[in-house]
């Protein structure tokens, strides 16, 4: 496999076109802060941006919707994230993110666990390209930030965790 093909695995090329979970997020939507939050992330180095909106049902991720503008890596990563975390308990989704981060920071040395990461293992090749890691993490960062917002809005969140 050429270095280009190991970076742009078929899964990535497919998701960059299909963009699962991509939706129009209305500007003026009123969101229930106890279950729904949005986060906008921007990469000032390349101008890529993504907005992720999540809704929790209890402690599960119920829906993920996103919009944004960016390279195929950032679009595909957010699409794969959508497929991986919708319907999962929040803790598990966080676990995937932790593994995903470790993989991306491995400089190509990591041994990602496909059991945990599913399709997100396709992004292993990104870890060899220091200036693309940020692209692969942008949507996930928005997810994590939205999650923190909901937790901050829930008075009981601390007791539960």
């Amino acid at each position: 496999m050429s270095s280009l093909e190991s970076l742009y695995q078929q899964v990535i090329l497919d998701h960059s076109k299909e963009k699962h979970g991509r939706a129009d997020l209305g500007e003026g939507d009123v969101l229930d802060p106890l279950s729904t939050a949005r986060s906008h992330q921007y990469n000032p180095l390349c101008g890529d941006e993504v907005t992720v909106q999540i809704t929790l049902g209890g402690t599960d991720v119920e829906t993920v919707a996103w919009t944004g503008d960016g390279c195929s890596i950032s679009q595909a990563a957010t699409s794969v994230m959508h497929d991986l975390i919708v319907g999962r308990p929040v803790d598990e989704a966080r676990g995937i993110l932790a593994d995903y981060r470790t993989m991306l920071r491995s400089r190509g040395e990591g041994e990602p666990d496909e059991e945990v990461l599913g399709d997100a293992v396709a992004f292993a090749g990104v870890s060899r390209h220091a200036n693309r890691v940020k692209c692969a993490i942008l949507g996930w960062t928005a997810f994590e930030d939205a999650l923190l917002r909901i937790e901050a809005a829930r008075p009981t969140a601390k007791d539960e965790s």
Partner: protein
Amino acid sequence: MTLTSTQATPLDHDEVEAIRADFPILHRTVGDGAQLVYLDSGATSQRPRQVLQAEYDFATTSYSAVHRGAHTLASEATDAFEAARETVARFVGVPTDGVVWTRNATEGLNVLAAALTDPEAGQYTLKPGDEVLVTEMEHHANLVPWQRAAARSGATLRWIPLTDAGRLDLATVDGLINERTKVVAFAHASNVLGTINPVAELVAKAKAVGALTILDACQSVPHLPVDLGALGVDAAVFSGHKMLGPTGIGVLAARPGLLDALPPVLTGGSMVERVTMETATFREAPQRFEAGPPPVAQAVALRAAVDYLDRVGMDRIAAREHQLAQLLLDGVDSVAGVRVIGPNDAENRTATVAFEVEGVHPHDVGQVLDAAGVAVRVGHHCAQPVHRRFGVNASSRASAYLYTTDADVERFVQALGSVRGFFGRS
């Protein structure tokens, strides 16, 4: 200067090959073994061994602190440092004491913007009601310092808009340069569009209303013969790392009368005359603007870079780059689904060509080109407003220099032709 019909003979194939032999880095491979095609000189240029050698020789023979100490090394280092100032001053047509060393062009512009908001700048101090005029094609380095200066002083920031062809909309200039205009700061050549702006025309209009003219010459001094004295600008900035020199050194060139009228911005050692516990007096320009240890080794290396450019001849470099601009434009134009951002004719244009590949993000474009060994810049190139003007967040940009071959351009165009297919766009 404008570059229409080029009188000088362009560098020929053998001359370009001889130049390339001086640049060790151009002979490396990248990725899976592809020969490097370096088309990112607009961001930073490569250095010939003569420049590296000059820095090495200085470090191994004369290196020491300048302008202090009575020992042999101090004297040799001071001579080398000041000789560099002389060389650079002559290269751009200003008196030697009109050259201030800075860290980079960004610093030079910040120093000017800060000095012009200091009440001690007297007649030059910006006030509420004054106007600062820039253009819509500026690098952030020649925009944000003026935004801040306007905010501090109460002056109004205005800008010359662009035509769809990527040129300044000169029809608007007469209204924009008026009796309130105090500063006109603009790029000689755009780092995105490649447009070469009509300096003489803008300077004449600015002079007619008594406004200062400040030229961002980052993308012109490395590529064209530039005589700042003849252009009549009050000040200009450019940068060592874009003209075969090292990083860490830039030039703020100005007519000495202006520098002497402006207060210092950075203060401390080296720039003072008498210091008491309460107060200090300052040296004349250029030292007044050079607080702290100066970039001595970088100045010596920059001198070697200027000597190199001089030996080749700026007029011949410009003529060659005129050819390269045409080759790049034709090449990009030949690829389906690719649009040039900027003028699509080579007149008054540098060999810097930004483009958009339909349906493919610039980051992905850059990655596919890199796999073919071709290094281009992707992103907003520190010029977000000009991208917004042309309806994109980012672009890809190929920028050539004296060491770029026709074959480099062909390799680039060939790789560009494979981009859309790779991502399944047809």
